[in-house]
């Protein structure tokens, strides 16, 4: 699967109502570590069917960042059945992100 770009308008449908777990990557264009994380996130999306990967640009969707208490990026939040279950802040290597999803 590909990474899905999610906005305030589509968050409810794509993340909260998703039957699959969703890993949301909160990021911004000006954030270097976020750009660095992007290829890893894309790779995980293409290799894992058990999880949906979503990307939220916090500049365009600052209300989502505020709502989910995101104040440092990159920030990965794992949602299951509409609820946050895990969170990871900062640039992380691929095995750690997989552990966040599967562990």
């Amino acid at each position, binding site marked *: 699967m590909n990474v899905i770009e999610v906005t305030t308008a589509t968050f409810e449908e794509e993340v909260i109502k998703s039957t699959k777990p969703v890993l949301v990557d909160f990021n911004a264009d000006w*954030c*270097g570590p976020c*750009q*660095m994380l992007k290829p*890893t996130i894309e790779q995980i999306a293409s290799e894992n069917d058990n999880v949906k990967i979503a990307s939220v640009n916090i500049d365009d969707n600052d209300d989502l960042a505020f709502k989910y*208490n995101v*104040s*440092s990026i990159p920030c990965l939040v794992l949602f299951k059945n509409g609820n946050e279950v895990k969170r990871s802040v900062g640039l992380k290597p691929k095995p750690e992100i997989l552990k966040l999803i599967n562990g």
Partner: protein
Amino acid sequence: MYDIVIIGAGPAGMTAAIYARRASKSVLVLEALSYGGQIINTPDIENYPVAAHISGFEFATKVYEQAQALGAEFVFEKAVEIRSDANGKTVVTTDNEYQCKAVIIATGSENRKLGLDNEEELVGKGISYCATCDGAFYRKKTVAVVGGGNTALEDALYLADLAETVYLIHRRDAFRGDEATVEALKARANVRFIYNSTVTKLIADNRLDAVEVTDKNTGDVTKIELNGLFVAVGRIPENQNFASLIDLDGSGYIKAGENCLTNVPGIFAAGDNRVKNVRQLVTATADGAVAATEAIRFVSEH
């Protein structure tokens, strides 16, 4: 067996890889996290020759691509030990062991923490080590910066443009950083200075709400309500894993001079993790060239 194993894919390590590959040495670069190192946190580099403006991410990516195109091999594993004997060197990672003739340690440094109880779990929930990365989340909010060096001063100045109030908490009564930046801060109406004080407690309910600050001279404890705390109390070189083999100074920096030689023949140090006065992008890449040249010579002679 590789000719040269480089530990760390920051500007120093990747530049060393470029030089070593151009001398036709086989090169393995080991990196714990991702290429680029600390520079990827810088949104705009303005003091590197040729590029008037370039982001740290773009800089790192270009150097990475250059090193790869020249044939440097990159493996993303954390180096935990170096062994040296008559047959050569062994770099041990969390997953493997790599034999080589020479090693360049270019591990850089990491942010020093305050060392307070719930500090780690509040990262991203009010605690930050990078004002330029996270400052945008604190528009019209109250923040504090801890520290007294240039990074702390520049962070405070950057935040003063965004936040409603910026407290600058410093454990001494005077700043070590640039006088000009101190003056610029003093001219800001929304910056408040708290001298001779340290942060002694983080008060949080899910996210950081306040800090407790203790005056070193009087022992008085003050509670400051805030939304964000930016920690800028220096950096720690990432040399601990090699301390049994490599001589370090009291602060943990590798005792290597401008020639990048360590106490062990065939092991070299490059970048922010060695003893030096100026830690800049351009001095890191310069170290990469010097260390690689020394390593190339060592490999050719042994």
